[in-house]
């Protein structure tokens, strides 16, 4: 590995969006065969920079060299030809197409314009074998796991012969095992002579795989450092520009009576099979119950059933002593539920509506916001202003459309709305997805505060760190069942990982006490 050959040089890159400088004179060098991390807070300009490199955006000024030659990357096609491929933060996959169709799109195997499906599938299979990326070439994207979708994304770049791969926050949606696997894939790719740029907020990931790291803050490149010789704390401070703490401050929980109890709950999924297969669960006042599990094991359906968004097939759900099974969402909300939904833009907000309208989305219909069927705009405005201030939602005005807020502030608005109603149960589904350290810190504090006020909190997240840091008890879901409930301070990441992969609790105990060599690999494969 000749570590000195520069495959990418970006010099003095500036990108303006109107008057806003998203990239401000950024420098970046990537060497052949390295994994180069790009670290920065939300909105620092990482995606923008990489979109420039991959031909989606044109820089306002600056120079790009690929393999020593100055180039102008005016389209994704050009980037492609230069051997640059990008795995996007939000997957760029057509749900209704198969894996193969997605991979070959734009570079199809064809005869006289007609696609040679079989041949293409073979190619995909071969490629996926070569790099150990197990995918089913014939599966439709909408029916495969997020992990497999991501592997399809990676294959897309490899299929195009990319030598320089850009991964934009690839781990946000993966299980620990999948992350592990991805790290393995990246290392394998590098060993085959590829170079990788890895965008992430997660310092431990950088420590684990990256060789060097460039830190970007507010559109400026701060520094490029050698990962081996830099501590996590140093990286974090560089990224944020101040000193940060990671640990969630919390005292011991004082659980009281159960607020939510679920008995033998069965929920069918849209296509008709059981997604939740007879769950029993309690959440007590004064505790945070974490729901861990790999995406697609029934967590979403469980939450939808509790919140009234999905039909309960059998079983009962009791909230605050009231049977809320199959009640309308509004009735359930009124009984005492707060819900921070998994997809904030799809469920949490009506983006084109104003912030104040969104702030009262759950309460617009009752006094004082509505009288005799008429909205009381004054009251609504006052209340929204209060919340905006209290929860530090950054916006130009309460009359701005929700769409104009940054992701983190959109989430804060939802949290403000849901917490301020003081529900006896707060369900938070992936509340910090895609947010930066500061925002995460804040949200976690609020969840704990809610708990300390004697309310019940249910936290669903795919991020183990978050689950372990915030929860008091953790229920692990696998294949529609809760296969174990453990105490947060008595478990380990490893144990949870195994449980999430469907290894039975007994086996897990065995595994944990036995030799700890390669079991992770096997577990990951079994999913």
């Amino acid at each position: 590995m000749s570590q000195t050959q520069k495959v990418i040089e970006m010099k003095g890159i500036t990108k303006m969006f109107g008057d806003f400088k998203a990239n401000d004179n950024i420098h970046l060098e990537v060497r052949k065969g390295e994994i180069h991390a790009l670290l920065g807070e939300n909105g620092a300009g990482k995606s923008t920079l990489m979109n420039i490199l991959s031909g989606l955006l044109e820089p306002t000024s600056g120079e790009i060299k690929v393999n020593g030659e100055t180039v102008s990357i005016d389209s994704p096609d050009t980037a492609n030809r230069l051997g640059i491929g990008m795995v996007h933060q939000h997957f760029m996959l057509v749900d209704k197409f198969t894996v193969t169709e997605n991979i070959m799109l734009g570079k199809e195997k064809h005869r006289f314009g007609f696609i040679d499906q079989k041949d293409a599938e073979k190619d995909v299979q071969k490629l996926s074998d070569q790099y150990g990326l197990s995918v089913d070439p014939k599966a439709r994207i909408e029916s495969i796991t997020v992990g497999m979708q991501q592997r399809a994304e990676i294959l897309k770049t490899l299929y195009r012969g990319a030598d320089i791969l850009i991964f934009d926050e690839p781990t946000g949606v993966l299980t620990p095992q999948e992350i592990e696997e991805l790290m393995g894939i990246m290392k394998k790719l590098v060993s085959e002579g590829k170079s990788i740029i890895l965008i992430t907020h997660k310092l431990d990931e950088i420590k684990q795989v990256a060789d060097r790291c460039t830190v970007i803050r507010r559109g400026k490149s701060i520094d490029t450092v050698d990962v081996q010789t830099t501590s996590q704390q140093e990286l974090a401070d560089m990224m944020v520009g101040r000193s940060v703490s990671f640990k969630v401050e919390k005292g011991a929980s004082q659980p009281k009576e159960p607020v939510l109890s679920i008995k033998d709950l069965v929920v069918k999924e849209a296509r008709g099979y059981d997604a939740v297969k007879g769950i029993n669960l309690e959440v007590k006042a004064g505790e945070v119950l974490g729901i861990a599990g790999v995406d697609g094991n029934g967590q979403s359906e469980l939450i939808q059933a509790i919140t009234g968004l999905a039909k309960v097939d059998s079983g009962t759900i009791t909230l605050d002593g009231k049977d809320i099974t199959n009640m309308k969402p509004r009735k359930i909300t009124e009984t005492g539920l707060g819900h921070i939904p998994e997809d904030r833009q799809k469920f949490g907000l009506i983006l084109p509506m104003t912030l104040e309208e969104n702030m009262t989305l759950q309460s617009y219909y009752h006094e004082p916001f509505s009288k005799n069927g008429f909205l009381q705009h004054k009251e609504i405005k006052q209340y929204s202003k209060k919340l905006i201030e209290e929860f530090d939602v950054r916006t130009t005005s309460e009359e701005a459309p929700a769409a104009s807020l940054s992701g983190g502030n959109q989430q804060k608005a939802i949290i403000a709305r849901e917490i301020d109603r003081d529900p006896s149960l707060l369900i938070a589904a992936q509340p910090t997805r895609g947010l930066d350290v500061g925002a995460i810190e804040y949200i976690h504090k609020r969840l704990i505060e809610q708990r300390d006020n004697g309310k019940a909190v249910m936290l669903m997240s795919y991020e183990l760190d978050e689950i372990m840091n915030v929860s008091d008890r953790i229920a692990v879901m696998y294949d529609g069942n809760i296969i174990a409930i453990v105490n947060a301070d008595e478990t380990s990441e490893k144990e949870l990982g195994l449980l999430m992969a469907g290894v039975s609790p007994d086996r897990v105990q065995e595994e944990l006490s036995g030799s700890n060599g390669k079991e992770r690999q096997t577990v990951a494969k079994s999913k």
Partner: protein
Amino acid sequence: MLAFGYNPITAYEAMIMGVFGSPYFFGEALRQATILTFSGLGFAIAFKAGFFNIGISGQLLAGWVSAIWFALAFPDLPRLILVPATLIIGMVFGAIWAGIAGALRAYFGTSEVIVTIMLNYTALHTTNYIIRNFLAVGNTTERVSENASLRIDWLTNLTAGSRLNLGFFIAIAVVVLYWVFMTHMTSGFEVRAVGLNPNASTYAGMSAEKNIILSMLISGGLAGLGGAIHGIGTFGNLFTQNALPNIGFNGIAVALLGLGNPFGTFLASILFGILDVGSGFMPNRAGVPDEMASIVIAAIIFFVGANYVIRLLIDKVKTNKKSDLEGGEEA
């Protein structure tokens, strides 16, 4: 136009002078605007809620036929009762006709576009059948009684005998009510919310089904009310139709031109009314085929719809002033 040897200036002069030069034709233009306001608002509210109600024509017809039926059946009721009752009947039948599409959409997910198109033709044939078999001997019903008429003398006199009627004021009232409903009422808020994001609305405890049906009911109700006003205001009777009333389809154009805003829709209706009535003067006074008026309307909507270009131009001018930075959006 010039290419075909027509003089556009005389054409528009003829149109404008024709309408504004006489209270009668101005009155007629406003009368036409009245009905367009109803069909436009009817289309707009469904559109706001996320539906493409292409069935305004059929709903208008349903309102018209039911209103005439009612007015003919109870000619002797006092005017104070008969007129409102007739209008309500028209509104209710229009609402039901659209409600079918709404309910099918809400409960079966059936495309409202297809259903409303099909209901249009169903309304057309059924109306003709009802006229011939129940309401009239032949193709035209009797006139409704004086007590059911929307004419008001001073308005008729003011506009030199035009058919402008009480409906115009009802239209203005409805424009205001529509605005109040959408911006100040809880249920209007729900309709908008469901239209903008049905998922979030369900999450917030609104019933998508209820709001789909509600917005379609209002939509059809407005169209039906328009039909009733057309019936007892413009014509005083009903006759068999050769085709679906154009005024229903023009409602789409009016609503789009008004950018979904009730006041905008009202103004667009007036513009349409003027163009519609005024275009009648083009062949006579300027020798220009009145198809030109439709082409003009289409052009206006085109530029309103493509307002992005205009915004872009304004932006360009602005940024050019500010600096030479090659930013902004692309062309």
